[in-house]
């Protein structure tokens, strides 16, 4: 299943928007937090987990999805939200804690919910898998179309919730695809130091589902393998586990000094940045010109800037609004 030219450009475009977004957020996040880093300060307080480098995991999968499909993501959600079609203005306002945010400021960066495109995420490791399985169950029971995608990190594959949800999804043959973004680090502990198996995709056999290993963060390979898994789910043949070896260009969270990374690792990762690589592919396959590239980037820049401006210009909610929306 190879992507069409249109799909390839869509993927490239969303990787660029995603990266511009993360770079902007990175700068804004540091506002008010110098000279001494204080997480509580600035226009974007709290934790921040950026997805630079992991864009292929988002676009390669979401290229196959429509608004009816369900995506449940993690504490590092921005690239996936963008690829899924979450309202970027409202998402940015939510990250800034504004009244115009997706949840009126109640959720923030780790709790992005957009019911219009069936996107949600959570700050607890391993929470996505059960919820995604349940959404898949719902569609199956209602006879309605739609597959569910659960994103998780490689660290989450050691959490009980993961094993339970995979087993349940397999026993009940649910239309769900589990996508592991393996960036090799659970904060400061490497995958090797924490995981009994070399490849989490090997764990799939324990749950009687296909396990797919993608070793190199390549959007095209991800597109192909995710496409197969999603079609399998749509045909009613059950779940798949996909493991993507991606790269976390930033620290686990903003403020992470990353002393635990071996010397030279970050530089190597920068060399294998998936976005320049994809541009090169477009040039070779479709004679992608500098003009086209600049136009795409300019539009991406505009989209991101507009979202940030909207967030900055928006009002904060009234404090008492905290008491609302607990129950409907």
């Amino acid at each position, binding site marked *: 299943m190879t992507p069409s030219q249109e799909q390839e450009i869509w993927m490239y475009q969303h990787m660029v928007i995603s990266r511009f977004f993360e770079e902007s957020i990175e700068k804004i996040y540091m506002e008010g937090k110098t000279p001494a880093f204080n997480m509580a300060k600035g226009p974007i307080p709290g934790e921040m987990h950026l997805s630079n480098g992991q864009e292929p995991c988002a676009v390669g999968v979401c290229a196959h999805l429509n608004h009816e499909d*369900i995506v449940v993501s993690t504490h590092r959600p921005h690239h996936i939200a963008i690829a899924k079609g979450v309202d970027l203005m409202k998402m940015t306002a939510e990250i800034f804690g504004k009244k115009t945010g997706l949840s009126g400021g109640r959720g923030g960066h780790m709790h992005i919910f957009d019911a219009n495109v069936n996107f949600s995420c959570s700050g607890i490791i391993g929470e996505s898998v059960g919820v995604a399985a*349940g959404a898949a169950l*719902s569609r199956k029971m209602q006879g309605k179309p739609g597959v569910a995608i659960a994103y998780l990190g490689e660290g989450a594959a050691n959490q009980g919730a993961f094993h339970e949800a995979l087993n349940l999804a397999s026993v009940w043959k649910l239309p769900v695809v589990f996508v592991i973004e393996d960036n090799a680090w659970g904060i400061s502990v490497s995958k090797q130091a924490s995981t009994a198996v070399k490849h989490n995709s090997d764990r799939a056999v324990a749950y009687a589902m296909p396990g797919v290993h993608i070793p190199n963060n390549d959007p095209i390979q991800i597109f192909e393998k995710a496409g197969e898994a999603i079609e399998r789910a749509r045909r009613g043949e059950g779940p798949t586990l996909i493991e993507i070896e991606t790269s976390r260009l930033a620290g686990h969270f903003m403020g992470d000094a990353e002393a635990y990374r071996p010397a030279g690792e970050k530089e190597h990762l920068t060399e294998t940045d998936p976005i320049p690589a994809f541009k090169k592919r477009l040039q070779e396959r479709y004679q992608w010109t500098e003009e086209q590239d600049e136009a795409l980037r300019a539009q991406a820049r505009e989209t991101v800037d507009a979202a940030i401006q909207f967030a900055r210009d928006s009002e904060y909610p009234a404090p008492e609004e905290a008491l609302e929306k*607990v129950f409907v």
Partner: protein
Amino acid sequence: MTQVKAKNRKLTIARAMAESIAMEMREDEKVFLMGEDIGELGGVFGNTRGLYTEFGAERVKDTPISETAFIGAAVGAASDGMKPVVELMFVDFFGVCFDAIYNMMAKNTYFAGGEINVPMVLMTSTGGGYSDGGQHSQCLHATFAHLPGMKVVAPSNAYDAKGLMTAAIRDPNPVIFMFHKALQGMGWLGTEKEAIVDVPEEAYEVPLGKAAITREGADVTIVGITSGVHHGLKAARELEAQGVSAEVVDLRSLVPLDRETVIESVKKTGRLIVVDEDYHSYGMTAEIIASVSEVGVPMKAAPQRVAYPDIPIPFTPVMEQWALPSADKIVKAFAKMKETEK
């Protein structure tokens, strides 16, 4: 409190729960069940009896032993428009899956700014007194009531059980439905007979967040939930023999909590005893007393609590029976209260 007129048909809480769920499942195809042994077995506590036969494996789903997964799945399914009724077999098991309950089920609506609902019911058994030990006998009312975002109900009788279950299933919010094993009416345990009451055949709701005055009185207010209500009623009869008129309030819901009914009662009687089989400290008894005290209701004596001591529940019957709340302890608490009055 207006009651639906009941024909002469007594049910156990177990039967009443099963009847409510069945009636809602007939009306709304979105309602379905998940849990361990709730299918062919009809539930370890009899609360899903007959449902598998009527609705089949599609809608009555026996699960593997994976609470985190199936409660998480219930959240996902409810967020997508289904109405799951899920069983957590013993409330004591909440530890293995509490994240899915208090961090997801209870908070997703808020995190989504009200844009998604999680209309699910989590039913779970509570209570001890039959030597099931420290990990199978707890009540944990406060543990669930304390955390924001989930409604909590707990009936003391079959009429309320059916009505509360119906209301819970129809509520667009997540509801924890706690049923006490000693009130349940199932084959393998003795049952409080007064929990077995007339239950109407038709569907009806008992509103969430509304307490009931189970027995009117003038001299002291006894507030309880589930087993505590029955201890209160027995204590009230003993006190009557002593010439004391006791009012018994059945909270029925912990969230929302009907503070008004309790406050009005204590305004009338001037005396308050709270009964809870859950642990003494940091719990429901403290919440009721604080709720009455902080609005300045004048009391003739210091309020008293009759609750479980702050210990893991012991196994041996002589210890366990000594620790449990009882009618006797309530009567003694009243005597103690009278001693302090000027």
